[in-house]
């Protein structure tokens, strides 16, 4: 069992987990759920970038991971602000 094999396994696990996150993004009954799904997807993107950088020994991919982390954080903050300023009553009636 070499490092490369376990990197492949980890990539497969991350891909499966990412798929579940996309299902939540599609199904999510209201915007807060979708926001959390988006945040989780950016975390998965960072992890997959790091694993790919390890697998192909390309240090440049780590910069892509850093930039993804920054942009994901800013995006999540903007979505959170949007939720804060919106009307919660509309979503509560959707769930019924």
């Amino acid at each position, binding site marked *: 069992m070499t490092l490369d094999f376990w990197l492949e396994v980890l990539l497969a696990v991350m891909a499966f987990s990412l798929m579940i996150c996309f299902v939540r993004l599609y199904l999510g009954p209201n915007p807060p759920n979708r926001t959390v799904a988006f945040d989780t997807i950016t975390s998965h993107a960072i992890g997959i970038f790091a694993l790919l950088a390890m697998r192909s020994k390309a240090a440049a991919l780590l910069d892509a991971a*850093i*930039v993804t982390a*920054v*942009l994901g*954080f800013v995006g999540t*903050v*903007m979505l959170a602000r949007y939720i*804060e*300023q919106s009307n919660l009553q509309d979503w509560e009636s959707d769930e019924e």
Partner: protein
Amino acid sequence: MIEIYLRLVDKILTPIIFLIAIFLFLRGHDMPGGGFIAGLVAASAIELTILARGTQATRDRYGPWAVPLAGTGLTIAVGAALLGMYNGGFFRSIWLEFSMAGEKLKLGTPQLFDLGVMFVVVGMAITYLLRLGEAAEVAVPEQTRLERQREDRHR
């Protein structure tokens, strides 16, 4: 509209993002990076400032720089392209090599062009992000709807 937690994050994270932008800018051309990407990363730092401190404070800090920065950047980029005329044609690159303590440092007109592109991108991004932030603050009055609902419940 000004969050305490976000202000702390802004104080710590904005200089780091600017450093990442400078790093990406200096690495340009031969490896991933360059002026456009560095400009976009710097724009995300400015967006974080807008989110944390509101548009008015950000306009006081960056507003006067936005349009002159874009103009200067365009001038620098065109100037870098025109400098190439010395070397046989429009956009031909001129490289200067410095050697310091055994390390070689290559500077040239491509770097200058990248600097111009970065200035244009940052100036344009400041302008439209500030406009968008102001539009959002006009659309939602100072007291958010959520706070109003909470007050209604307390009554």
